[in-house]
């Protein structure tokens, strides 16, 4: 029987993931951003491992291990090296100030609570709030993608959306491993592709600032 303390710990992990998503929005340096993303992936893997423990679903341990190895170790290390090679390991320019981004973040969290709680009225209270936290992580990842001008930040935002989806899926019981392997591989492929593109963009235009790349879009009048 799942005791209340166990459910509280799972809930705490979900809340912690929201906290780390907010920390992602707060970062203004590239290395800090990548390290915070590693922490994000770490929290997700612990959360999935805990869910494996309390749901007695051993295949989730493998999901947790994949998240730990791939997302908390391999991808951050790769990103660190890409960032150093591109020479962009300095400050990140947010489009609006960090204060306004924080305000938008809290609005999005309130919005996801407001949306999720009424429509999941049949489920248990903890599951409903876990789902609203997962939706918040997804929305905050999207906010990260649109409020930064830097391509690497957008990659990190995209991967934090993926983490939010994992949180939602493992919170509700039962997610087959095959889905997770395919998702993880597609992420890895996407990363390699994006990495290649980043190199080519950088070589061609000497910058990866999206704002400047916009001028070179085709079919401008």
């Amino acid at each position, binding site marked *: 029987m799942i005791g209340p303390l166990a459910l509280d710990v799972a*809930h705490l992990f979900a809340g912690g993931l929201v906290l780390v998503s907010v920390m992602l929005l707060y970062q203004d340096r590239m290395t800090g951003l990548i390290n915070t993303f590693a922490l994000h992936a770490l929290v997700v893997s612990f959360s999935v491992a805990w869910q494996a423990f309390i749901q007695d679903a051993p295949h989730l341990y493998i999901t947790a291990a994949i998240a730990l190895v791939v997302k908390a170790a391999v991808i951050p290390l790769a990103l660190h090296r890409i960032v150093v090679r591109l020479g962009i390991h300095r400050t990140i320019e947010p489009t609006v100030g*960090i204060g306004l981004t924080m305000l938008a973040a809290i609005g999005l969290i309130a919005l996801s609570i407001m949306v999720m*709680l009424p429509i999941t009225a049949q489920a248990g209270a903890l599951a409903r709030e876990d789902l609203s936290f997962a939706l918040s992580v997804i929305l905050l990842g999207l906010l990260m993608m649109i409020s930064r001008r830097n391509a690497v930040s957008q990659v990190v935002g995209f991967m934090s959306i993926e983490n939010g989806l994992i949180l939602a899926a493992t919170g509700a019981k039962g997610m087959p491993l095959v889905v997770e392997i395919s998702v993880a591989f597609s992420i890895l492929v996407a990363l390699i592709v994006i990495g290649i593109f980043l190199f080519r963009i950088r070589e061609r235009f000497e910058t990866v600032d999206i704002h400047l790349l916009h001028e070179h879009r085709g079919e401008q009048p």
Partner: protein
Amino acid sequence: MAVILDALVQFCQMAVVLAFAPLLAGYVRKLKALLVGRRGPPLLQPYRDLLRLLRKEVVLAHSASWVFRVTPYLVFAATWVAAALVPTFATGLLFSYAADMIAIVALLGSARFMLALAGLDVGTSFGGIGSSREMMIASLAEPAMLMVVFTLSLLAGSTQLSSIAEALQGPGIGLRVSLALALVALVMVAIAENARIPVDNPATHLELTMVHEAMILEYSGRHLALIEAASFVKLLLYVSVIGCVFAPWGIAASGDGIAAYLAGLAAYVGKLALAGFLLAVFETAIAKMRVFRVSDFLGAALMLGVLAALLRFVSRVT
């Protein structure tokens, strides 16, 4: 009889706060030195500093007014009274019904108000730097602290700190997300309010990087001793608040007996030691922020506090 015992506990509490505050500051200083490979000043050095300053003559600028002279006493009194209301080794303090957490926040605000005025009093530019930056930091740290107070009082059903400590010791409160968010926000506010790295460097000599030190630049002698003592007591106050709310184990309840009080005192000393160690490690590991990054830092603390309070309003389990 119970009233007399409660009064005794209250006065012991006030004495404990005053006695341990310089020790905590000395302990943190020593640990920070050890962590960077120095020997550091002796553990009891802050007591010696205070005694030395108390015996010295005060030098007042020609343009200083009575506000400058009265402020150190008011700042010390307000901070000490606020610290006396925070449970350290026992709850059920006799005077906890005079002021709740909102009043404690406002008392610290009064101390800051007077200190900012004293910074402007002599009419130098450095005092102005300190006062204006301090008020900017306060304009974000105080609301963040108030939102943390809201979260705690919504959980415990009361704004009195003794009642909150008792309620959080009880079985009804488990691990909650809003408590975790409130803890993070409270730690951020505590760092900012106590002028610690990364917000302000308490040991800096560069005036343009100062916030708190710049406000008190013109103070000397016994005035400076009182203000230093007040800042030691303020650090102890914040550590005690975090301890009694988030690590309430070991605090004796009202009327428990001498053995429980002594055990509570031992637990409190342990909490101070742990908190001092964590603070020293944190300060050594992190660099100081630019002044205008502090507003982002405290804005994040305010957002976390608002989020914690919001969760209390809308959720039934967090």
